[in-house]
């Protein structure tokens, strides 16, 4: 009970922040009724999905300060578990998704245990490697479709058990619920014992160790939490796109996008990953859609996208949230 109260308690944020959160929540709830087109809706779904990924990454990457670039492998585990169990055994989404999360958790312990002997760049490189190895295994694993991937059967009628809807509105509300669960969890997490321990580790590992914190265990726990988050997102991707292959759910690009959005928005803050996703997802999708089909403008969207990322990161390494705090005179 105490934990739930903590999760719902936003009182340590300033009035402005709480006001924005309320307005933003009302907007999210009302969004499907505002008459936006389906493409805008699809972009909103991507935004919520990447916020979810980013918040997960934020536990280990932001609060823990460990640069982690291998989250795609857990997206893949979540997506493949849902797809394989639906195609082979006709298991509903609501059962296969938790199983996927459990597998991701188990796998993350297996990977995390040896990996956290490494620090800094070496750790970052190792996370990339494990993810690439898993992608290669799935690319060659005939049972799960190898490079061809898996197609989910399309149900003729909407089916809540299998999360198949004709209208994106249902998917929208589903991912929105996941988004809020993640947000409340992160709000609790940052005030939890583990959250404080991680920030201590980030600032000074030796000092943390001298205070009796089991550094490696803390990191593994945070890493696993992050993995569980993205595995949920992976499961959602499978039922939403109805087709997955090793490239679309396990690629290095995806890992980098997840880390990039959280870092650009502002790592180690509650709002950072959400702001990052709100900035980069629409930028990427809209620019691509507006400029992508016009002759002479092809590729311009990439330039704008890249230039904005460079400008933000050069101006304020703590990301967009860092800029906001600086403007409000709270720059620390």
């Amino acid at each position, binding site marked *: 009970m105490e934990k739930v109260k903590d999760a719902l308690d936003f009182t340590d944020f300033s009035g402005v922040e709480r006001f924005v959160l309320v307005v933003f929540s009302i907007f999210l709830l009302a969004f499907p009724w505002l008459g936006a087109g389906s493409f805008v809706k699809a972009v909103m779904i991507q935004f919520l999905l990447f916020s979810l990924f980013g918040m997960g990454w934020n536990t280990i990457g932001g609060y823990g300060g460990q640069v982690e670039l291998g989250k795609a492998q857990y997206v893949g585990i979540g997506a493949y578990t849902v797809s394989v169990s639906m195609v082979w055994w006709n298991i509903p989404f609501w059962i296969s998704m938790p199983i996927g999360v459990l597998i991701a958790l188990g796998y993350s312990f297996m990977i995390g245990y040896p990996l956290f002997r490494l620090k800094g760049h070496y750790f970052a490189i190792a996370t990339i490697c494990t993810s690439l190895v898993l992608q290669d295994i799935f690319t060659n694993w005939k049972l799960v479709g190898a490079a061809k991937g898996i197609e989910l059967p399309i149900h003729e009628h909407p089916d809540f058990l299998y999360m198949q809807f004709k209208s994106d509105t249902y998917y929208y509300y589903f991912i929105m619920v996941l988004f809020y669960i993640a947000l409340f969890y992160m709000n609790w997490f940052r005030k939890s014992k583990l959250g404080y321990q991680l920030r201590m580790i980030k600032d000074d590992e030796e000092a943390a160790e001298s205070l009796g914190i089991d550094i490696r265990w803390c990191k593994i726990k945070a890493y696993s939490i992050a993995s569980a988050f993205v595995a949920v997102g992976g499961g959602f991707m499978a039922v939403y796109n109805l*087709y997955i292959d090793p490239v679309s759910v396990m690629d290095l690009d995806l890992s980098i996008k997840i880390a990039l959005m959280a870092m650009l928005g502002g790592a180690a803050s509650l709002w950072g990953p959400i702001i990052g996703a709100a900035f980069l997802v629409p930028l990427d999708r809209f620019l691509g*859609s507006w400029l*992508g089909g016009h002759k002479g403008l*092809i590729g311009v969207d990439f330039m704008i996208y890249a230039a904005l990322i460079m400008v933000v990161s050069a101006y304020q390494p703590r990301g967009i949230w860092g800029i906001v705090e600086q403007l409000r005179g709270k720059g620390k």
Partner: protein
Amino acid sequence: MSRKQILFVFVLFLSMVTMSSALFAAEKEVKIGVLYPLSGAAATIGRDLQRAAELTAEIINNKTPGVDIPMAQWGGIPNLGGAKIKLIFVDHRGEPDRGADLAKRLILDDKVAGLMGAYHSSVTKTVSAVAERYGVPMINDSSTSPELTKRGFKWFWRTTPHDDYFNRDLFELLKGLTEGKVKGIPAVPKDKLKNLAYACENTEWGSSVAKSLEGYAKEYGFNMVKGILYNANSPDLTSEAKTLVAAKPDGMLFASYLSDSLLMIRTLKGMRAQTNFFWGQNAGFEMADFAKTLGADINGVLTRTVFIAKLIKVKKVAGQINALYKKKYGDDLTGATARSVVGVQAWAAVLNKAGSVDPKAIQKACNEINIPANELVMPWAGVKFDSTGQNVLGRGLIGQYQKGADGKIDLEIVYPFDLATANFIYPFPGWK
């Protein structure tokens, strides 16, 4: 330029913009959403596909003299009151999830009558799933994964033959070789051709080509002595090439994209690899850059395709449309771009037959359509879909790169035998 001149040009430009939009608004149009990879790794091919599709829409929308097909004299879709075809292009970058999102945009926001695309088989998978869900017709012009038409979809049709057809073509050619049917050379004893080896790239496309090649080898009584799958992004293919050479096959078969096909041929050349023939399953082997980069080295190399510029010798329409394309963009049509042409042609014919943009009417028209051979740029027997949505009248070509008298490398047709434009070079003449 003086300020007055600039002002004049500006006003002229403005008036043209307003005029043209006013003109367009007065015309009826049918919107077709086209998904192609316009940026990213396949950007070059996407650009060419877009050009070919646009040109075809122009030919159909305006009465085009000098193109001898009824469609070119329509000036719009006759049964839709002369409505013009408007193609809305979007860029999926080869990403399946982006393709699906864009398909939703096209269907729900742009309210297109149907979809076309998407080149990458993986993107076509998600896009067609969206189309199926919303009950919007999709005509696929250029994805060759055989599975696409084996899913029981009701809103998906494919004009191009798929990889199974192309792989069978190769074995028909080999069989023809042993029977003396090939232009310009006597029958080759089968034991000189019996042992084959392949190297295919290891994603969806290459691995399914490999599987199908093994199946056909068995069916036609050939031996597959070695088969390897490799990573198309690999910076070095020496060990793969060595494995192929060590197997001492009578022929080497490839499914490669562009950069890896160049690397493979160069590595094999470095090893002075000896074999009777090389065959590539389209993609890299068919791109203009393949011939431009490797030059005389590929004299005698075979590739599967669906369109070769030499077709204009035997097919008038192909020559006329190719001439328009070449005049506008400077290149000949290729297998990929000619398929875009047929895609738009199929859409025009279907819309005309349906006489409506109602999805049900279009569905019915697709299932009943029969476009005769003489209206297509392709050497096909026409366009007619079976119950799975696959065009059963399509066929592939096998081309051979040959060095002409002027020293230039040209792609000649060697299969089907009745279309052959040159004598077959056999065995592979060796490296220069």
